[in-house]
């Protein structure tokens, strides 16, 4: 819920760097890119005057005008298509889905038009498709999805999902400058999470797409994860550390194309792997990670590759149900403990 103070603050130009939450960092990134490059514009539902459902684009319209902050009708296929068309003309659209769940009506346009355009006739589409994903805020089956697996089997789409304020800014800038379509997922729990408030640099930095980061170094087992689950992984690592298990946490940051060498290096170091994601387990991106490891680092494995993820159901609304549905820190600790003891 936005407060009066926040509303007024939002209308101002964001700081350049400084202590920032995830959402502030993200907004800084978009703002700076729009300043830097007049072909960058935003498009989506309620992104203009209202500043977006989560206020990611708040204030941009005051600075850049309606011409570069396009409020659309409720029509995600049109948002994707219009972004692609504008990109063909040389513009650089940053399109918002109000919730990532609403990427579904745009699925066809993304998978068939956006993803295949360069391959078919050389027309690259520098487009960014972003929006809030993820569960854990009791938003029910239609405002909680993690959509990466919908798109992971379609060549031509890059997928990123930051877990820190620093990466949120660096990755949105990289996405906007990327010559190809990038899906940029923002876990909605992270936007204003005080824990993620951090000092980010003043200068113009990008975080390269396709590069994972070691969120915590460890020796005994690797947790491969991304997005909001990085926090669960770190908390679980802390707890396991107290039990004498040294855990390495890999934050993928980019889901496609995946940083295989970062994954393999970690596995070679620890020889035990736990994959953690928030989407349902079956058909989730964990399969791709496990398969990569089972194929390319088999010799280094000392234990089965374990996946911890949501159960195979829609995301239920009621807190006790949602809690059961989602992977919890205790599930990660439990799995880590067993893996360590294996």
């Amino acid at each position, binding site marked *: *819920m*936005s407060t009066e103070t926040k509303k007024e603050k939002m209308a101002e130009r964001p700081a350049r760097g400084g202590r920032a939450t995830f959402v502030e960092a993200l907004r800084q990134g978009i703002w700076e890119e729009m300043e830097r490059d007049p072909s960058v514009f935003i498009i989506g*539902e309620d992104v203009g005057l209202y500043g977006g459902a989560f206020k990611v684009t708040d204030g941009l319209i005051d600075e850049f005008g309606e011409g570069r902050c396009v409020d659309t009708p*409720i029509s995600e296929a049109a948002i994707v298509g219009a972004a692609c068309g504008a990109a063909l003309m040389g513009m650089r659209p940053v399109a918002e889905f109000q919730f990532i769940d609403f990427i579904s*009506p745009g699925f066809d346009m993304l998978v068939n038009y956006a993803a295949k355009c360069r391959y078919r006739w050389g027309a690259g589409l520098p487009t960014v498709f972003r929006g809030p994903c993820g569960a854990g805020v009791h938003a*029910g089956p*239609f405002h909680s999805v993690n959509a990466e697996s919908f798109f992971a089997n379609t060549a031509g789409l890059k997928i990123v999902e930051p877990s820190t304020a620093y990466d949120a800014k660096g990755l949105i800038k990289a996405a906007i400058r990327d010559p190809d379509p990038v899906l940029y997922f923002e876990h909605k729990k992270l936007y204003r999470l005080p824990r993620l408030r951090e000092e980010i640099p003043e200068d113009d930095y990008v975080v390269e797409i396709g590069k994972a980061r070691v969120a915590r170094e460890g020796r005994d087992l690797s947790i491969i994860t991304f997005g909001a689950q990085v926090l669960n992984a770190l908390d679980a690592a802390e707890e396991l550390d107290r039990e004498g298990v040294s855990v390495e946490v890999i934050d993928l940051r980019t889901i496609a194309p995946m940083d295989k060498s970062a994954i393999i290096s970690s596995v070679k170091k620890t020889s035990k792997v736990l994959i953690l994601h928030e989407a349902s387990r079956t058909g989730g991106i964990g399969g791709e990670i496990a398969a990569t490891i089972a194929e390319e680092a088999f010799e280094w494995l000392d234990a089965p590759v374990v996946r911890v993820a949501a159960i195979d159901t829609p995301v239920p609304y009621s807190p006790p149900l949602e809690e*059961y549905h989602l992977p919890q820190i205790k599930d990660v600790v439990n799995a880590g403990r067993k893996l360590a003891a294996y």
Partner: protein
Amino acid sequence: MATKTETKRKNAGKNKAARDGDGNGNRRGANNGNLIAEKSVEAAITTSIDDAVDEKPQATAAAAAQAIEEVATASVNADGEMICQLETSLTRDQMLELYRYLKLTRLVEERLVNLYRQTKVVGGVFRSLGQEATAVGTAYALQQGDFIAPLIRDLGAVLVKGIRARDIFAQYMAKAWGPSGGRDLNIHFGDMTKGFIGPISHLGDMIPVMTGIALGARMQGKNLVAVAYIGDGGMSTGAFHEGLNFAAVQRLPLIIIAEHNWYAYSTPTSKQTAVKNLADKAAGYGIPGHIVDGNDVVACYETMKRVVEFARGGGGAAIIEAKTYRRKGHAEHDDQRYLPAGELEEWERKDPLDRFERHLISQKAATREEMDKIVADVEREIDEDVAWAESSPMPEPKQAAYNVFDNTIVPPALRPPVLGGE
């Protein structure tokens, strides 16, 4: 830095400009990039459907209000205040029942807001304040066997269809006794025996589903009517188009209630569509379109009744546009910064409940005492229902794993043990 009030005014002005454009009433897109001078269309060679290029300037003040004045059969009482449509087949008892549903709707929502402030409602609260007459009046014209797919802002229709307030409370509070057992929120559930199919969040998606209800029913020899509620925003979706078009081709009895409440979240209707009336969209489907004053419960009922007869009699699909206004923000958290100054106050004066009360009094259909008694009854019912809902436990965590599929065929999706153990 601007004070709060100043900011709101500033925003409001900006938004107003966007909505009213350069004097073209609600026929305005955004003037992005190069503003190109407007030009009237030259007559097309043959057929020219250029109604849209309507150049006559309109006063910018209260364009919304004007549009309705145009269509309403605006009756007034002795004090010159607006009441409801006079011609009606409604009996006195039915009028009182309508009154009861209107009050029930409003008071249930007010109670939900209270519960929300007490953090007892888990998700958001979406109000239909100011729109209750549309939902209640249209649903009241249906038979038991007819089906509705309401929007979040059609609680009134859900109640008219016989869903109890306690189900709504339990559902909002994510309780085990709620109709979805805590799995889904607000009115996202259904009851086939009552002809109620709850929506999903994805706007437009219920239109094809309701087309299917009508199609299936026809195959079964059932002569029912399927009603789908949709907003000015939701009509922009592809699913709306595909679903309604298919129903129109098949001449299925699908009635679309197009709720023109001027906003889709923060987006004014002028940024959703270039038509003047949502009912204009009917022409694109080869079906009749109707406009009704959505704040007049009698008019909503009577129009709906006629269209239901048309649809049930084999006439096929139709659109009814109800002109109304969303007086609260999109949900409780929305600060409505995008509203032009004065707009809200104007619509407060048009409140559908106040209007119907005046109507009942002026038509001598009810006394103040009778109405008070109804309200007291409703309040008692709500107290009981809230108490019931509050007494419900939260669902058992493990219930989350059940019934993705028919569990006699596929076992529940319980959390798998790690490494064989657990």
